[in-house]
């Protein structure tokens, strides 16, 4: 599903963010990507969604070689990969439901389809009672669930979650992880970027550990080691 071959990323010749990384994530896996701050985790996410250019090596997403992806193809890549971030990235002047609908609108989906899909994904994340509220009227966990709902509107095969619990307390964090597991159980490949030791250790799933831009360990049932 996701395959990296000797991938490197230099922001400039002196800043090596990713240093010769190779790994393969199979369809339906739930993988945690861990490592200290500044070791290149977010950079890796950006390479996967085509936001940064790959300096060296090759990346395949669902069999598609995105190494030299063109600007006009990026929208299609983005619709196949759902992404969520620590800071939710919701529009404050839209309700939770409208935030989800927005993702469909700006890709030119017909109204009838939008009205059908948006409430469905809202329901998957368990926000059907709060979908008419604005982001500032709900908790951090609910904002993140809205972001997850939005990332699901195109039924992506991959969900990338870059520190999704970074702004949440442990109860909300657990709910988000449970939701990611639920989405994974439907068959979506999930990559969870985190540096939360407890979460990683309780998950008992595959763990990739990055250190200073290098892949230093890849364990099938991993522990947080750094």
């Amino acid at each position, binding site marked *: 599903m996701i395959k990296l071959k000797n991938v490197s990323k230099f922001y400039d010749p002196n800043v090596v963010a990713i240093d010769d990384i190779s790994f393969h994530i199979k369809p339906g896996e739930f993988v945690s990507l861990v490592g200290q701050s500044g070791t290149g985790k977010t950079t890796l996410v950006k390479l996967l969604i085509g936001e940064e250019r790959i300096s060296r090596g090759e990346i395949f997403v669902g069999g598609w070689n995105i190494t030299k992806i063109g600007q006009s193809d990026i929208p299609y890549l983005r619709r196949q990969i759902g992404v969520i971030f620590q800071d939710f*990235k919701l529009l404050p002047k839209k309700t939770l439901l409208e935030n989800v609908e927005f993702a469909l609108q*700006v890709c030119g989906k017909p109204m009838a389809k939008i009205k059908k899909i948006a409430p469905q994904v809202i329901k998957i994340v368990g926000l059907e009672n709060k979908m008419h509220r604005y982001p500032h009227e709900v908790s951090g966990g609910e904002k993140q669930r809205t972001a997850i709902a939005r*990332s699901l509107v195109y039924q992506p095969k991959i969900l990338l979650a870059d520190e999704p619990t970074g702004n949440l307390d442990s109860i909300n964090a657990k709910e988000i992880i449970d939701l990611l597991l639920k989405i994974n159980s439907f068959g979506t490949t999930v990559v969870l970027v985190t540096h939360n030791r407890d979460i990683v250790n309780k998950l008992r799933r595959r763990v990739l550990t990055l250190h200073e831009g290098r892949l230093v360990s890849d364990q099938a049932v991993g522990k947080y080691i750094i």
Partner: protein
Amino acid sequence: MAHFLLSLGRVIKFSFQDVLRNIWLSLITIMILILTLSSVNLLLAVRAISGAAIGTVKEKVDINLYLRTTAEHDKIMALKAQISSLSDVKEVRYVSQDEALSVFRQEHVNDPQIIEALKELDKNPLTPSLVIKPKNSDNFNDLINELNKLESPIIESRNFEDHRLMLSKINAITKRVSDTGFVVSLVFMSITLLVIYNTVRVGIYTHRNEIAIMRLVGASNRFIKGPFLVSGVIYSLISMLVVIFGFFLFLNLLQPYLETFFTGYNFNIISYFTTNFWPIFGLEFLAASVVNMLASLVAASKYSHV
């Protein structure tokens, strides 16, 4: 096709939201567009009016060749025939001394002093003349040169400089006004470009979160850049409508003055603009939209990669 219309409808909706959200910036953009379009239209009006003015002056112009009172009739007729054969001459009319006097009397019938003065003279003070109508007023200068070359003892005076002066004066004024208008229009156009560019830049800045999210969820470029292009058309349309309204109001105020100036001539500035409505205003709208869209496109391409 249905998909395209759906997208277009949504893009138009987004761009109206943009226009309203940055309402002050939109108003400034529209103001500067109005100034630009007005200056272009004023330039057109000046050209139309001066064109008509030159036409009427040329129409009015007859060239008078004054002859000696002693000139014999057959020599005058010979000269008349010679001038008639010139290629630029449409018609030559002989005005005898008596005829000139009666025309003069007619013209000054309300001026008793002059009539009195005429009576005191025992001789007809006027000279006979040949009144020459040029065939084509554009070749006026050629004709004058030819007439100046004529050698005949019966010619008393030829003074054509008045006509020449008047025409060149009108031409000079027209040229100066047109040139100024052109420069002013150009200046306004450049300001428009800068203002539009800046409006789009600020628009992108205020929408940077939205644009970032759009990119993130895989919005196609037409949804990201499209609204800015459509805003350009909206600005042009609003400004054009305001300008058309204001300009015809102005023309209505202007027309009475022109009527006194062009008495006897069929010149109406309002109908000039109504008969040429689409070539003038349609083209201006098109040009303004294209300029707006280009400026928007450049700004959007430069700043929308967030």
